[in-house]
């Protein structure tokens, strides 16, 4: 079955079996291995991508269900010239990652948060990121990174 998706602004078509998840199509068919597959049952959040601007778990979605929709993955965050997205820069600067496995999921969830709410409080960040697990950082630096990115994106000094 041919599935056409807009992935990071580019129309991509993959020939897939209906039982293949969006996460597997992104990774195995389209070579976008930035989306990580962790628990495969909707708990860890590592596979988070945006579907028409909304964060979803790509392991709980068949690729055919997303046909014709706009998918944004972590590869779509940085600018074409490689300049990091403010969230990526802030995760780097605030040490918001250690092993990095969970990072793409956190970045995409945080991206949706800042699209909706450019000035979140610490508590709002924690609540929003409650569906993503990190086994390294203890979350503090991740929360700091999102707040730093929000501040920079608002153009604050």
């Amino acid at each position: 079955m041919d599935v056409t998706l807009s992935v990071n602004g580019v129309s991509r078509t993959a020939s897939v079996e209906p039982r293949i998840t969006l996460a597997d199509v992104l990774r195995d068919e389209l070579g976008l291995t930035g989306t990580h597959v962790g628990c495969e049952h909707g708990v860890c959040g590592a596979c988070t991508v945006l579907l028409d601007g909304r964060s979803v778990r790509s392991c709980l979605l068949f690729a055919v269900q997303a046909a014709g929709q706009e998918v944004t993955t972590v590869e779509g965050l940085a600018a074409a010239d490689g300049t990091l997205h403010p969230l990526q820069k802030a995760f780097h600067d605030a040490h918001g990652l250690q092993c990095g496995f969970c990072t793409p999921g956190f970045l995409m969830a945080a991206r949706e948060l800042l699209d909706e709410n450019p000035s979140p409080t610490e508590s709002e960040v924690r609540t929003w990121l409650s569906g993503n697990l990190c086994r390294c950082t203890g979350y503090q630096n991740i929360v700091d990174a999102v707040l730093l990115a929000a501040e920079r994106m608002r153009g604050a000094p």
Partner: protein
Amino acid sequence: MDVYLPRTLPEALELKARHPEAMPIAGGTDVMVDINFDRHRPTALIDLTRIPELAVWRREDGHIFLGAGVTYTRIMQELPGLRAWFQAARTVGSPQIRNRATVGGNLGTASPAGDALPVIAAHDGEVIMISARGERSLAWHEFLVGVKRNALHPDELIAGVRWRTVRGPGSFSKIGTRNAMVISMAGLCLLLDEEARAVRVALGSVAPTIVRAAEAEAFAAAEIARAGAWDDPKATLSEGTLAEFGERVTGAAKPIDDIRGTARYRRHACVVLGRRALAWALADRRG
């Protein structure tokens, strides 16, 4: 496995009539978990996410109809005035889950832990089912017939749920091991129906299906009347009365020990949830 991607309701109903074994899937947050764990291997799926008729809600003739395809994110954004609904929607999973998970999914899965179900029960909701043969509806307690069992026929789809608008304060609260991403150990929806001068309490996760605490409801309504609080929102109930209400609420529970908690803990949780929910509702009326 075949996947059907109908774009209209008639198309979906025709597919379901022809392939009654096909599993309906919307957000996938229940169905996909079972598939990924190989607990369930459907031969066919019918994707319902493209069907506009299921993704609507509307006010009609003193009632509200909530389509099966409305997500919990949309309930929070579009129906914040329905306080108990908002509170239940907010406790479902995480943002990524709420962006996909639907009310129809809670009804289809029919788990006693479905967060929307006590809210539907407290609103005396009726479940609307459709098939190529026509439409029918069942009261929530006729629809939810057991643990993960409902009264849906193989050729039917869940269209949504409908209830008479209730005027008065209400809440949904639940107990679990953390605030997010948790399947409840006990959940409770309480509504004060100012017009009928009635109290409605529904419990989740503490019996094979959702249960109403009818005896506690009658007790609370009578105590509110005795205190004169239906007419005078400033009138209060004593701590002792609230505590007794909690005890009567837990009388409706038939909990079991399982991986998430013991029956004893669940009974205690119902006491506390009931007492708090009635106190909140009375405080809301005082303004």
